[in-house]
């Protein structure tokens, strides 16, 4: 692999420039620049559809160490990835290991990026960049790999769900019990979590009318962008709330759930992206370390009477989960399915499964 040493750069919307070296594809791209503080799991993160339209900055400097695994499949899902393609628009890191080492690695990170035509930038002072994003909030930016300039593009203006959701329902067969998974950009591990519990999963597009499908539970998946853009999903969920089938919203799904109850969501200054977000279960002394990736949050104060804040973030107090007081409706802002990240809250799937009679 040939790493051009020509100076490439990241330009933020406030005009600041971060120089680095190009790897992966040589394409120039624009997107929303966000940072993730996780220290492992780049193959999973890069394929997480919630990053759609975003240029991802990894704060951990040494990336590429264990290469990229192969495309093995299990239950018709890629075993080592969270979706079928790289979802980020670009990747910005500090130190790149082109020479990797791992028993299940098949190629280098750069080779993989090239395969998916995604540009990467290394040699960047990612700490300074992160501080800037923290202070000024998430910004638009562009990765330029050559002298050509491109214009800034705001992904949040688009309906990103459309880009990441499947077009037609897919069925993953296991046991007799069935789960509807509304795919707003789902991570494979949500599907795996139910297959492991012997549920069949019917994965449907984000705007699919699932109300007539017979199912034992409904999952509204994670996904990219502003939840308010998912009008069709919100409409469907609103209707589902009038029935009794258990519902679990994850990340964007939780926001959609909140919007369906009439509560409000808002954009966080720089979001939560990492594997170390502490979430306290309201009314207890229990705190869980969670994996997160979101730029929007539920405004807990706007929840209606029969809903409660279930979890909140111990760092900044933002909402991390909602729960209905009597019906089996739940939403978590964090990712109980982890991947990458700690699996401390995996038990929530068991809890949800228990609520299915």
């Amino acid at each position, binding site marked *: 692999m040939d790493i051009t*040493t020509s100076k490439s750069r990241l330009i933020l919307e406030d005009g600041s420039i971060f120089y680095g070296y190009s790897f992966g594809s040589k394409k120039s791209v624009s997107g929303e620049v966000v*940072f993730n*503080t*996780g*220290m*492992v*799991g780049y*193959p*999973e993160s890069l394929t997480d559809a919630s990053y759609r339209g975003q240029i991802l900055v990894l*704060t*951990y*400097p*040494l990336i590429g*160490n*264990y290469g990229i*695994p192969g495309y093995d499949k299990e239950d018709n899902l890629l075993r*080592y990835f969270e979706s079928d393609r790289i979802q980020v628009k670009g990747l910005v890191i*500090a*130190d790149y*290991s082109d*020479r*990797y*080492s*791992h*028993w*299940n690695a098949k190629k280098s990170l750069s080779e993989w990026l090239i395969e998916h035509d995604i540009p990467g930038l290394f040699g960047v*002072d*990612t*700490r*300074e960049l*992160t*501080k800037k994003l*923290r202070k000024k909030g998430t910004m638009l930016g562009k990765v330029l790999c050559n002298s050509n300039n491109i214009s800034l593009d705001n992904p949040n203006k688009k309906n990103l769900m459309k880009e990441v959701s499947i077009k037609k329902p897919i069925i993953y067969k296991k046991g007799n019990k069935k789960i509807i998974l509304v795919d707003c950009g789902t991570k494979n591990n949500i599907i795996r979590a139910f297959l492991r519990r012997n549920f069949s999963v019917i994965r449907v597009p984000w705007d699919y009318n699932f109300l007539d499908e017979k199912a034992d539970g409904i999952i509204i998946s994670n996904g990219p962008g502003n939840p308010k853009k998912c009008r069709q999903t919100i409409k469907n969920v609103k209707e589902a709330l009038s029935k009794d089938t258990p519902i679990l919203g994850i990340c964007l799904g939780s926001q959609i759930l909140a919007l369906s109850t009439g509560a409000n969501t808002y954009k966080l200054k720089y979001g939560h992206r*990492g*594997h*170390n*977000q*502490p979430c*306290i279960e309201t009314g207890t*002394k*229990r*705190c869980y*370390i969670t994996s997160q990736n979101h730029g929007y949050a539920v405004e807990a104060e706007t929840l209606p009477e029969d809903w409660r804040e279930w979890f909140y973030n*111990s*760092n900044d107090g933002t909402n991390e989960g909602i729960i209905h007081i009597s019906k089996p409706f739940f939403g978590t802002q964090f990712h109980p399915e*982890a*991947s*990458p*990240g*700690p*699996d*401390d809250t995996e038990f929530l799937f068991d809890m949800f499964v228990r609520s299915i009679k």
Partner: protein
Amino acid sequence: MINRRNRKIKKILLLGSGAIRIGQAGEFDYSGSQAIKALKEEGIKTILVNPNIATIQTSDYLADKVYFLPIDTFFVEKVIKKEKPDGILLGFGGQTALNVGVDLAKKGILKKYNVEVLGTPIDSILSTEDRDLFVKKIKEINLKVPISKAVISVDEAVKVAKKIGYPVMCRIAYALGGLGSGVAYNKKQLIELTKKAFSYTNQILIEEYLSGWKELEYEVVRDRYNNCIVVCSMENFDPMGIHTGESIVVAPVQTLTSSENFKLRSIAIQVIRHLKVIGECNIQFALDPKSEDYRIIEVNARLSRSSALASKATGYPLAFIASKLALGYSLIEIENIITKETSACFEPALDYVVLKFPRWDLQKFRKVSSSLGSEMKSVGEVMAIGRTYEEALQKAIRMLDVGMKGLVCNDLIFNDLEKELKEPTDKRMFAITEAIKKGYSIEKINELTKVDSWFLYKIKNIVEIEKKLQSNSLIKISSSLLKDAKQKGFSDLQIAILTNCKELDIRSKRKKLGIVPCVKQIDTLAAEYPAKTNYLYLTYNGNFDDIFSKEKNQVIVLGGGAYRIGSSVEFDWCCVNSISTLRNLKYKTIMINCNPETVSTDYDICDKLYFDELTFERVLDICDKENPLGVIISMGGQIPNNLALPLHNSNVKILGTSPINIDNAEDRHKFSKLLDELNIDQPEWKELSSIEAAEEFAKKVGYPVLVRPSYVLSGAAMSIALSSHELKKYLKKASEINKEHPVVISKFITGAKEIEIDAVAKKGILYCYAISEHVENAGVHSGDATMVLPPQRTYLETMRRIKIIAKKTAKSLDITGPFNIQFIAKDNDVKVIECNLRASRSFPFVSKVFKINFVDLATKIIMGKRVNNIDRSSFDLDYVGIKAPQFSFTRLKGSDPVLGVEMASTGEVACLGDDFNEAFIKSLISVGFKLPQKTILLSTGPIDSKMEFLESSKKLSELGFKFYATKGTADFLKENGLDADILHWPLDKIEPNTLSYISNKKIDLVINIPKNIEKEELDNDYLIRRKAVDFDVPLITNLQLAKRFVESISKVSSDDIKVKSWDEYN
């Protein structure tokens, strides 16, 4: 939020870890100090038992009461009886404290006095300490531990091996040095191996073979509400098979995928929950490098060396938090002291990489193998922080201060490279580098070393840059290559060597090109939240500084670096105290140090902590950034002392005594000249010009002579030559150690006393001083000597002369600050042997015995502040302080446990007593000496020392001891009317033999005075000494020490020893 801590606890007993030794070093001063701070914050009274007087935790401003007493059940019970604490903390004093705690619980002592064990309950501790119990516990939750089974026949071995699957490890239970162990890849090999093994023993262990598996550690914290966090993950560069204390360790894990990492994390949490640990614990894993298969190796339910490292690596104050959790708090009730905005319930995210490198001092020990394995031999460690692995690695190697300039540019020759790779030694990192240079493929090296290829590729990156630099010159070198080299951790000196120019040429060139490091903070959250503390490091992998530097009124204190023989926790005490005085004087303080086992690297100690290299280049970099008023170099021992002159020559203001005068004292040539001018007596000396001249000199003054290089600490390469043959041998060794500074030989005076003065002077005038005498005669390194303060057997006239010499020296060298002079005295003749214009190893000892903080005074004087006159009567004590050395010979298999001019002790204790005898016995028990009950083995050396010991022998006999003796000694005793059973010399191989009596525990104490010369006898003596150490039988090898010991036990028994806290001695 409501604080739920246990309100009935008002007084807590904390057990320290005692003297520094291999496997148990300064990390427990860090953890204990943090615990005391955490408890103080809660208004809880703390009682500390720790005889390690040089620690910060035994400072008067920390614990409410300090007992300089042995940490054993006998004495701790006495303290409990006296102090009546409500609770006890066992997790902060290493294995020592844990063992005593378990014993106290088992004997019902804690129950008897109603003392509650805080934090992890005793049952949980037991299930981590007892291997069988541990395996049972882990199996209860269906997790995996290495399979191991004891077998008694070849057939059984084959059966077990079939079940485990080949290859298997065959190990002889309880064998020293892995004798008879081996790997069997198939049945045939196993039969061969076990047949051989059963000829030595009747039981062997068949274990699954995990060598070559990755070794990982996770630091886990749990509160009583079952909240769990994993604070740090660490990966060993060295695969399974090498003790983690010997391993190069990286944090966070580098070669694990997310799935592997979080799998191990989950298991770690499952285990700690199942074991019901409250507070902190460490869990070690082995991970198959070819699958996700794992084994749980062990759990330490206490603060450990790894947890200290994890604390420093992440900025997460594990010991502090563990103390709060022990009091009953939940993790969410404790604040993250770095961000001050978030709670302690989170897992740190690092945006840098940390590398720990152990430091060995193996060349200091006779007969020790340098190969690494399952036993720990390293005496200290450093931690480097960088934003590339290469940067951290090269930094770490320089931090070790073993003469290596980084990964490359060292003069190392490997005769058998392949062997070096297969059987790792302390030089393995350099052997791998050499192999890469020689063109070995990464696959081949990986096969030989089992080190993960990722680490090897990184080494290769450095070698590639080295190659590029070699084909360059100062003029030719491009800005991008220079920057690349700096980003990969090359020092200016390395680049200068490779491009054939001077270090400062490179420095000025790169500064002109704008290639300077930037300052980054360690903030636990990878910049996600603003950080309030100044825990800093420098890196070339970044473009912007995190902090605003160049504040006014800043003073830098240079720390002591890695702990090693001769430089240990005592210099940390000096640094921390100096910083504390500076803060009281309203200076902004900057600490530079690189040792994760220290208190000085706690970021709340100073205003800014640079966890970075103590090298000329790095200190200059920091000075460039911070523009301090000056640098204090006299507190951190020899490393900062050596930097004084170079820094001074680069226009850095050195505070205190002028670096020119430091050089005058350090350079033995200059110093000896100075003494001549001042008319101060010294042993006759000569600077080495040629071996012939040296021999001629030795002949003139007469053997023995002392050979010593300049600028060394702890007597490295210092030797006493008894003959011209030895002289030649030692001269060669000394010139190898240090090529830049000349070697000096001097007349060695036998039978003389050694006396030291620790002092502080102000503008050349002696301000305060402490004179201490050694129990051992001159010839034993001062670091290994037993020190007595105030002196009990030194003539007043000698003391007066010493004081005069100190005054003259202070004046002529215009000393401002701390200094130490060592003397030898025979009759009233006083000669100077060494002078250091810095704080010495014994500063904490004399400060704490006198209750006058010498470092505080020295710092005030250095800063030109007023100090009050000291009341002379404070030097007039009604009690005695004794400092005794701690040796780690047990850990160093094969080493000869004998004292000499080269220092061998790894730590020390000091105890106070109403008289010499009481303090002496206390201090001996504190370093693990067991008082003899019935039997003593005597072998008292040459005739004159036999004579000298005769009185003592008589006394021992009167006390009712039974003697065993070697032939010569027994005959001598008989001639003098004393009875002794003859035991044969080891090499005679006849029973009754000295060795079998020692190993059968028929001997309570061995007194073996070496004879020095004759080869055969030396080996016999060595075997006796070694056996005593291996079987934990107390051993005395020094005549003076033996005599004083006999005197003391004839007057004091352990029941007479008083349990008095430090403040009760007035």
